[in-house]
């Protein structure tokens, strides 16, 4: 039986648009905050994971590439990757990196540190990205954009590798936003 298609099944296009826009002008990286705010709003206000379930562009992208295009090897994930220790550990690490981006942006805004127009993938590989920065904004705004784009690109790379080796939406198992929103929902409905 063929499943019904809904408009949100095409949200994978947003992933491609987002990374393309950031390639042209790094300031578009700010749009990545949508993927931080919407799941939290759904979880805090609605007590649900509707963003993960339907509207996550990355989830839809992984589904299309893994299931429809057939790029996934569909192996079983090792237990440690599915375990709570890794899930919560990765969530803490991920948000520590996010707050570090805010801190570095503050340093640049305070003129303690100068703007670094590089995109860092997997926290180590620095890619020069100086063609994308359009002058005209305060340096901290650009610095935050570089940082957020780095974080989004890094997590996208991890998500794609997980999709290729394991099942299509394996990233969702240890996605920091997914772990956080599930924790919020569980806390909300805890009696």
């Amino acid at each position, binding site marked *: *039986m*063929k*499943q019904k298609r809904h408009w949100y099944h095409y949200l994978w296009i947003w992933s491609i648009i987002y990374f393309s826009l950031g390639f042209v002008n790094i300031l578009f990286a700010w749009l990545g905050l949508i993927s931080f705010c919407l799941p939290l709003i*759904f*979880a805090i206000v*609605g*007590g*649900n*994971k*509707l963003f*993960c*379930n*339907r509207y996550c562009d990355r*989830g839809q992208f992984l*589904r299309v590439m893994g*299931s429809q295009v057939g790029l996934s090897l569909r192996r*079983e*994930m090792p237990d440690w990757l*599915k375990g709570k220790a890794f*899930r919560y550990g990765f969530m803490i690490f991920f948000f520590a990196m996010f707050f570090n981006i805010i801190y570095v942006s503050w340093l640049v805004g305070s003129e303690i540190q100068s703007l670094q127009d590089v995109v860092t993938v997997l926290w180590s590989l620095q890619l020069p990205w100086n063609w994308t920065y359009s002058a005209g904004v305060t340096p901290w705004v650009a610095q935050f954009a570089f940082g957020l784009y780095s974080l989004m690109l890094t997590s996208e790379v991890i998500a794609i590798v997980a999709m290729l080796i*394991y*099942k*299509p*939406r*394996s*990233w*969702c*198992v240890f*996605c920091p936003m*997914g*772990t956080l*929103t*599930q924790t*919020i*929902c*569980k806390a*909300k*409905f805890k009696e």
Partner: protein
Amino acid sequence: MAKLSPRHAVVNREICVACGTCVDVCPMEAMQIVQGSFASPLEEKCVGCGMCAKECPASAIKVEVRS
């Protein structure tokens, strides 16, 4: 009362990450996410086809014979 299928999906709530993959792939629209916390099949709709178990990235779903 509708006759229940002899097999059905069983979700391990401790492992389930409520990603919604099972909801998306279920041909019977039998899966639902409860309180943003875990997936749960609607017993009267689930036919135990195993699509959800096959796609679940966390391997939180098994198909079992109804007791």
